């Protein structure tokens, strides 16, 4: 069995003192850890994951040129052909009108009625590129820096770097949709970091945490008696194995779990929130109820000291009919997300909370014609996308980078995802090059092998 302590000792033996003492010192500092960049403003993060890959062309990156090219034949060059990108393809214009929002004049399609009201809080970025064209690998890439899964997610790294502000709650909480995203729970994995950094999904329906309540018919009082008996057994056992430290830790976990059984359902319960708050987030109404509940929950969780909340909304994978599919999705997230931004601002929390809005890739300016040309969508595009940031330390009210005239590829302020990861960490006070973990014979980091922060995104 490998315990944390043992691991550290092993490290000492194999590496020499330098790294080891640094780690121990940080451990000893207790729950909250000092950031690498004390000047960083953001202390926590809400990551709005638009699963499926939202189309930049139909949300925040208008391409008037596509109006001229609409339904003209499109040819793709290069050897990286897939079955899907072959065959006859056509340019496709956006079915939506675009407006200029806020003082900053941010581009938004007109369906963003509420988000337009907080446009000046947002920093749009159009220069990002990723590697993968398939959902699960692209999800893993965005979440863990590694396309193939199995590495720690951003939320796990951030908790590793900044520690926990509330020891009774997990530091990394995931608010999935009813359906888990492609790639499943590996999207919030702790990877090779200690298990305590794993993302804890709070399920939107049924039991928020699996098995968080005793079996029906067992009251908490009854369970208390059971646990007291268990403690008797464990005490006797510990007496026979005085040198075995894990025993006490495991007993402590039972008591923590007992407390969480009542605490977690309380936090998840939104029924006692004021009507005005529910109204603001669009809770109790369609199509905003589902995302609205989770946006409000995200705010409550960060208020309670959860370091990193990731919320999934989708699926934006509109291959077939962008007008209908994106046309329904945008109103489902628009009001809740705008409410979250303004709520954080009103509570004075936006200045030290980082909000990220992104999907796993953008979408193509072209499409094979399906359904006889009446319905058209867009395929996956790793070379162009729009993401936005808001909150602590972000260059709000700016649009950075640009794509080409058809939205096919980023051409200005172009950065690979690893630089974006470095940027996110930097905004949270963490240095990717110093936020490392020794595993399988080398120091590993989120960006895999280092990157540079995108200075244009930072205020």
């Amino acid at each position: 069995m490998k315990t944390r302590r043992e691991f550290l000792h092993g490290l000492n033996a194999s590496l020499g003192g330098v790294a080891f003492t640094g780690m121990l010192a940080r451990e000893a500092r207790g729950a909250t850890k000092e950031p690498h960049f004390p000047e960083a403003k953001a202390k926590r993060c809400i990551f709005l994951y638009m699963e499926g890959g939202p189309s930049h062309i139909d949300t925040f990156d208008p391409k008037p040129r596509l109006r001229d090219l609409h339904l003209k034949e499109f040819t793709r060059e290069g050897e990286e052909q897939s079955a899907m990108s072959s065959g006859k393809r056509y340019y496709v214009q956006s079915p939506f009108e675009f407006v200029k929002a806020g003082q900053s004049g941010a581009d938004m399609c007109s369906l963003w009625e509420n988000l337009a009201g907080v446009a000046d809080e947002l920093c749009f970025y159009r220069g990002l590129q990723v590697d993968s064209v398939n959902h699960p690998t692209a999800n893993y890439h965005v979440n863990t820096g590694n396309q193939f899964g199995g590495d720690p997610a951003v939320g796990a790294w951030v908790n590793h770097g900044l520690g926990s502000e509330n020891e009774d709650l997990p530091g990394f909480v995931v608010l999935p949709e009813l359906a888990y995203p492609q790639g499943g729970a590996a999207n919030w994995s702790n990877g090779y970091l200690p298990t305590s950094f794993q993302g804890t999904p709070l399920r939107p329906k049924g039991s928020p945490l699996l098995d968080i309540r005793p079996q029906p018919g067992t009251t908490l009082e009854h369970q208390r008696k059971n646990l007291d008996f268990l403690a008797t057994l464990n005490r006797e056992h510990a007496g026979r194995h005085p040198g075995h430290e894990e025993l006490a830790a495991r007993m402590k976990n039972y008591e923590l779990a007992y407390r969480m059984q009542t605490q977690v359902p309380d936090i998840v319960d939104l029924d006692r929130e004021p009507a005005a708050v529910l109204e603001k987030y669009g809770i109790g109404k369609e199509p905003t109820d589902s995302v609205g509940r989770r946006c409000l929950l995200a705010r409550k969780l960060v208020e309670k000291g959860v370091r990193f909340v990731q919320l999934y909304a989708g699926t934006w994978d509109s291959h077939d009919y962008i007008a209908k599919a994106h046309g329904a999705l945008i109103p489902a997230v628009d009001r809740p997300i705008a409410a979250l931004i303004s709520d954080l601002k009103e509570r004075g929390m936006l200045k030290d909370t980082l909000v990220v809005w992104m999907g796993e890739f953008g979408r193509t300016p072209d499409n094979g014609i399906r359904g006889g040309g009446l319905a058209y969508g867009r395929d996956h595009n790793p070379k162009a996308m729009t993401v936005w940031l808001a909150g602590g330390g972000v260059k709000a009210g700016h649009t950075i980078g640009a794509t080409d005239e058809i939205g096919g590829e980023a051409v200005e302020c172009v950065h690979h995802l690893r630089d974006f990861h470095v940027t996110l960490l930097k905004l949270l006070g963490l240095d990717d090059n110093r936020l490392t973990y020794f595993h399988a014979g080398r120091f590993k980091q989120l960006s895999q092998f280092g990157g540079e922060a995108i200075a244009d995104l930072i205020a």
Partner: protein
Amino acid sequence: MSVFFAVAAVAAVSSFAAEKAPSKGEKLFALTVRPLFAEKCFGCHGEDPEKIKGDYVMTDRESLLKGGETYGKDAVVVGDGAKSPLYAMVLREEPDFEMPPKEADQLTRQEADAIRDWIDAGAPWPEDARIAWIQKNHAPGVTVKTSGGLNDGWTHRRYDPAGLWAYRPVKAPDPTGLGEGLNPVDSLIGAALAEKGLKAAPRADPRTLIRRVTFDLTGLPPKPEEIEAFAAAAERDAEGAWRDLVDRLLDSPQYGEQWARHWLDVVRYADSSGFANDYERPNTWRYRDYVIRAFNEDKPYDQFIREQIAGDEIDRGDPEMLIAVGFLRMGPWEHTGMSVAKVTRQLFLDDITDSVGQVFLAQALQCARCHDHKFDPVPTRDYYAMQAVFATTQFAEVDAPWLPEENTGGMEEDERYHRLRDEANEALLARLSEKQREYERAWFAEKGLPYRSRAEAKKAKAPAKDLPPGKLFRTPDEFGQERIGRKWDNRFGWEFDRYRPIAYTVYDGKTRTVKAEYNRLEMPGDPMKEGELEKTAILQTGNPFAPAAPVKPGVLSAVPGGLDTAIPDAVSGRRTALADWIASPENTLTARVMANRVWLWHFGRGLAGNPNNFGSTGKRPTHPELLDWLANELVTNGWSIKHLHRVILSSEAYRRSCEHPDAASVREKDPNGADYAAFPPRRLSAEEIRDAMLAVSGELNPEMGGIPARPDMNLEAALQPRMIMGTFAPSYVPNPRPEQRNRRTIYAHKTRGQRDPFLETFNQPGPDKSCELRDSSNVTPQVFSLLNSEESADRALAFAARVLGESNTPESAVERAFRLAFGRAPSAEEAASALAHWRECEKLQAGVNPPKREWPAEVVREANEENTGKPFTFTERLFVYEDYVPDLQPGDADARTRGFADLCLMLFNANEFVYVY
């Protein structure tokens, strides 16, 4: 000496004898400091004037001493390294100037001290020519002959010999020096203990020992009767009783189930492909059973290697061989309509190259995919030479008749349920086709056209404008359900292969271009007819579209004999030759790697601490002689794994108590337990916890092998909707009857995208990466799983009913429960408090009318439909639940039994249950 230990300093060559011998400072600089500067500093402080940070240039002595904008000429205090800020920076002790900035690039203590010593020596900076001369004639370390790197610098670089241990021939110590009558394991461990002045803990008592070794070899707890029998036998003849016990356990079929699980961790076994579609791999279970058989039959390890790497080449006519070589395809992999064929093919090639490296050779080869290995003598050429071995390896699922030893039971019933599911889906598609036809008729009628269907219009060569545009569905439900139906039709069809004698295997031939992989891959009649015969080349930055120098199939050239090992470059036979090289007694890695794994699975730690990485970055062996001795034992005893077990298990080291009489000095002198002064306790693995609960409750069905079993899973997790490409995945549904569900966990269906939360929380590793050593963390979700889950409640109730059925009095029931769960009788105090707790719980239970549990016969899925942007619903029928026979339910038990079940549940939760000593 600085970084390297003064081992093989090369003698000065006479033609340079005229050169003055280098001073200590010059040598430090030429051999250590200058290369460090170049590798770690010049990127920002030298080479490129554009990139210079802090105005500090380090490429010549004058600039170095002049300093940069912050420290100026104080950066280096010539003659006093310790006072020089540069030294503090590289120690990372200078706030905000920890250098190099990347923690991953940090210098070792020895490297930093070399800089200090060089400054102490006056920071001499000889001419480049002299530096080169010193490097050539005075460098420490050794060179390693390989197939050659991408540049001469790499090819001729020097290595710390200590990091090359695994490339040296296995040198078993002379047994005559190991002490009369002692097990050589103990002699070799004892030497290190004695050196530290540590005494070994005494032998554990027989009850502890039988529990330890039974879990170790079978993954199950010993039965109370077995414990008593062993304790009695051990009193008469401790050695004989132990030998008999070990023999009995090694002969039991449960041994193979437990040790196959270890191997499946390393090879990443799963029943699905992972990624976007996460298709079931309907026949991989045959590989799982092959591994179990291999361990039970004590298949010689060299043969085990050959069969897994080249079974198909050895004998295509033997189904066993076709199944075994399925190893090559155990990683996650898929090829979708979005994927680029060359890219996914390369993913396989990279995966298998690295896998073979890690699994059999403990070499992390992926490091050499984009460049020559940074630390080990593995040139990128070798990586691609190994990869070339697999360049003709192609996937296929081929007919391979059932073997007499394979369990084909339960297929008919399983297939019947699968058919129900498939038929329901087909009926849905038929209904929707009918709708489509109806809408087409209406479409033509509305347009006043004389056709009744699209097909008919097409046949009549109607112009495009007179053809209806694809799907004419009218409601979100119609659109959404049709898509699910179509996707599931494809999946379900493939999954029928689960019941067919098909091997998930490979063949040699040309690489065909496959559009997308969504069904069984059949083997072409002529493997050389269609496709491309791959020509492997070194890929720049690993990019399949950037081939550089071509390479021939080969092996790792740094391993002795590697350079002389010829791999044919004919289409067939490459893998056989590779397997022969790996399985050769002369290969310095293979036997050590397996001996180390076996040791690790017994002791919870490897002699070499990174079983998948014997390179210089892996942990060095704590007992190199012991490792070599074990490796030699393995090879010279016909590669018998069971022989290795017997040798290890008969040692005193294995039989030591976990409690050391002088625990304080052990903690002080051996905080890691690397000296084996006491035996390390361990937490049961995920599978062992579930299997032990089933064994103790009396519900475990010991049936072996066959198509994957479907145990109960937390119902919310089982029905948790999850996305696969373009749709929902079908729900997880358990088997209908308890005896089918309550099989050993190794037989549970393993879906990459839907892990059993109970097993996952107890650290069952994800099947995407090779797992060399499981974690055993201690986290709160484990409490919820073990304390609150239906699985635990069911086991506890069955345990209670079993015990009450076997006991006459409350006292004897309590005693029996303790004996079953902990392998011992309770103390008087424990018995008293258990009885009191039972009485109290019985009273509480008397006031409870247990709610009747319901199982869902269907589940409704909701999502937004893409064509309409509106929500749709889909109802999935769960046929098994219509016939589902639950385990014993609270409603079927009286308050006395339920109260006792409370007690039993706490026994399962107790530390004593989940830890083995």
